[in-house]
């Protein structure tokens, strides 16, 4: 069996290496099951859309689902950005797999509009818009999300052009709009420079927009609706736990790719080692952000803040919180501090599954109580705590259906764009060599400026 690094070395000897897109067999049982569930997701969505437009309670679980998607599939492309920004070879085979999640992220928009339509007016409740006008929060949020997703699409397309563009001889024969779509790609030195610069800039913008979108959404459909809840660190908590989950999604994807795809021969444990370290870092950041919030409320004992913590953590949604705590912190932390877990992709994927399960419960405990809050206006003035709102059958079908829709959208994307960044893999193969050193061998890594 050829080691993944050596499989990659081989690319430098094959000048026209162009990875192919994944073939999806529609008759495959798993794909058929996903299709069926996807239909359920669309039907339940339509039921809400036409039967409960503007009803905040009915959209509570879809809102939580939207935040799950924003915090997992929409953050996966950040791994590609991080790996490129640090010029890390470790991320190479995972970059495109991560970037392709832009396509299922577009589904978030379908949830965003009806969720925004349920929000009450800003007057009389705490908010971040401070008489901004301009249709806040609806227009700026819809706009910010659109720009965020378009930036992601642009990032995916720019990075994919060298892999999908036809050779210059064929490109000349295409209509003008198609040539423009392929950025007139012929691989000149100038085009390569522009492409690299564009990837860097788009990646940085994507990160900044992600943080911004998380900040406004987590506030407007989260703490702004629950009187007494005021936490400056909450947007950071959402953003960081999103990055943790984005890594988890990518780990599961490349683990599946390794197991079921021919491209899996390029994926090794080198990816697991590095992604595992970042996962451990984000896991620690999760508890740090949570503790920064919780500790201050616990110490200061302001009635409104205490009530919010009782709802979100200690009493009303205690069960959800405990699943989130185990899924997003305890299990990953205990697992990831051990090298045997962190250094094997097939073990790391179980940690990733735990994180994603934790994420679903975490977003439920955070956003369902806000969306179902009886009176989002004014300041907290005491009184009994609200009861928990657990999902009904339609909610459960909705969640399962939308998970299936995400998987189907990803498979569709993978059948159009190769799941491996061929040009970067080939470049990296040229920049990595093995050489004898004293009595052993070392890896020589080139780092061009």
């Amino acid at each position, binding site marked *: 069996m050829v080691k993944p690094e050596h499989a990659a070395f081989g690319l430098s000897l094959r000048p026209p290496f162009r990875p192919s897109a994944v073939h999806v067999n529609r008759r495959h049982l798993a794909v058929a099951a996903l299709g069926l569930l996807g239909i359920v997701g669309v039907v339940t969505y339509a039921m809400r859309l036409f039967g409960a437009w503007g009803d905040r309670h009915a959209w509570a679980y879809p809102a939580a689902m939207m935040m799950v998607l924003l915090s997992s599939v929409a953050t996966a492309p950040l791994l590609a950005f991080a790996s490129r920004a640090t010029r890390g070879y470790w991320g190479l085979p995972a970059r495109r797999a991560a970037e392709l999640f832009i396509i299922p992220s577009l589904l978030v928009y379908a949830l965003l509009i009806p969720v925004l339509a349920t929000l009450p007016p800003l007057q009389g409740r705490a908010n971040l818009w401070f008489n901004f006008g301009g249709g806040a929060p609806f227009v700026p949020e819809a706009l910010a999300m659109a720009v965020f997703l378009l930036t992601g699409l642009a990032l995916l397309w720019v990075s994919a052009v060298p892999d999908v563009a036809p050779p210059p001889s064929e490109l000349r024969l295409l209509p003008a709009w198609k040539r423009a779509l392929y950025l007139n790609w012929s691989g000149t030195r100038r085009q390569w420079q522009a492409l690299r610069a564009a990837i860097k800039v788009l990646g940085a913008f994507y990160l900044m927009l992600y943080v911004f979108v998380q900040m406004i959404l987590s506030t407007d459909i989260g703490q702004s609706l629950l009187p007494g809840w005021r936490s400056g660190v909450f947007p950071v908590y959402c953003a960081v736990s999103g990055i943790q989950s984005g890594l988890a999604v990518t780990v599961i994807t490349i683990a599946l790719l390794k197991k079921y795809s021919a491209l899996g021969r390029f994926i090794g444990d080198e990816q697991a080692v590095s992604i595992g370290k970042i996962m451990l870092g984000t896991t620690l950041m999760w508890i*740090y952000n949570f503790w920064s919030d919780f500790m201050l409320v616990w110490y200061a004992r302001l009635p409104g803040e205490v009530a919010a913590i009782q709802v979100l953590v200690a009493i009303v949604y205690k069960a959800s919180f405990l699943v989130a705590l185990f899924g997003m912190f305890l299990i990953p932390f205990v697992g990831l501090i051990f090298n045997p877990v962190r250094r094997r992709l097939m073990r790391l994927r179980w940690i990733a599954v735990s994180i994603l399960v934790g994420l679903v419960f975490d977003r439920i405990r955070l956003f369902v109580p806000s969306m179902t809050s009886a009176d989002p206006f004014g300041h907290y003035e005491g009184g009994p705590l609200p009861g928990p709102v657990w999902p009904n059958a339609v909610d459960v079908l909705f969640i399962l259906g939308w998970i299936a829709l995400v998987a189907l959208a990803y498979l569709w994307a993978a059948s159009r764009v190769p799941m491996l960044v061929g040009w970067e893999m080939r470049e990296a193969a040229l920049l990595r060599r093995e050489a004898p050193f004293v009595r052993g061998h070392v890896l020589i890594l080139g780092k061009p400026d």
Partner: protein
Amino acid sequence: MQEPITVDLKTTNRQLFDFVMRTPLWFFNASGALSLILAVGLGIVVGTLWVGLQIFGYSHPVYWAFLIVNFVFWIGISHAGVMISAILRLTQAEWRRPVTRAAEILTVFSLMTAMLHPVIHSGRAWRTLYWAFPYDFMRGMWPNPRSPLVWDPSAIFTYLTSTILFIYVALLPDLAMARDRAPDVVRRFAYSVLSMGFRGTTRQWRIQGVAGILLSALILPIFVSVHSIVSWDFAVTGVPGWHNTVFAPYFVIGAVHSGVSAVVTIMIILRYVFKLQNFITRDHIDALARLLIAVATTWFFFLMLDFMFGLYGTESVEVDTWQRRLFTGAWSTLAIIFILCAFVIPVPMWLFRRVRRSFFLMFLTTILVNIGMWIERFMLIVPGLERKSNLTFQYSTFTPTFWEIAIVLSMLALPAIGLLTFAKVFPIMPAADIREGQVVATTLRIGRANVPATMRE
């Protein structure tokens, strides 16, 4: 890196150990001048013990001012060492090698400087003993574990201890090299004891390497916890503008911003003072500047979060405090200076490669950052206190006195003396680490280009 170290291993040894083995005249002049400045500061401190804190500009309800600002500032600077050293070591960043030691030493001496301030601020220094340490069991008086007076010493001492251990482990091979080059018996004996029999066997290198990695990983949570605890000194109180859950990460990232900037300043000074042009190159400053762009932008985001969530609840005292900070009298001028110095001027400049690779401009911009960050701490602490009381007739303002300003300025001399003294006794750059970097640096021939490369196991 595009500029590999070009000198051979022998010259590396000679240049890095030159100051340790010989004492130039300027060393006495510089340490004498710094000692004089420090003596002035200590004289004022002794004066406060004699006459009390009345010589400072405190007036009810503002009893936390320059000394506490300086405490937070120096704690912030101390975050540079671990940020640079531990994180870059864990990520195997090659450019870290000449930077780490100075950053770690800066941590130790700035922590020591920081620790002095709450003690001076207490007015009766000896009393801090029974606020912080359970020293008198017979009286049944125990420190209150829910008080920041207990949290801070616990966190800072843990950080100081682990940093010293961290430095010591990294220093072992250099101590052994110093032992082998010591010109007299006394120094040879001292270095022999300190190097704990390090002979450079394979086993010793392996253990030293593993210990370094483990300590890097262990020290990171400590580094984060220290400034978080310092932030909670403020955030757990009900003072307007202070009670914000974002304070802990905001303080940590602010500390990293000022700390990394201080490391750049120190590196540029060391380069000229110790003639380390062969080791501290434009690439190192460039890499640090890139890091600073990311850190400064993150810090700015947290600043915005602090601002927005200050106004978020539309509580009148919070809004009033922010209005006071940003739009009232001298505060508005300070706010403009702070934001210009800490973000608006340096960050856009760092986006240009020419600025990132200019020692002069980097020196200037990183100094600006620290001026801005000092003002930031001042603006965080004092305006809120001035409106701490509910009743308007209890409002007050703070005006610093000459003595406070003198203490703040003279305290700059303490880490400087510490760094200078350390550099006299131990190599200020990790010689073994730099030599390793020279060995693993290589080039790859690709087509007609030579690409800088590094060897990895």
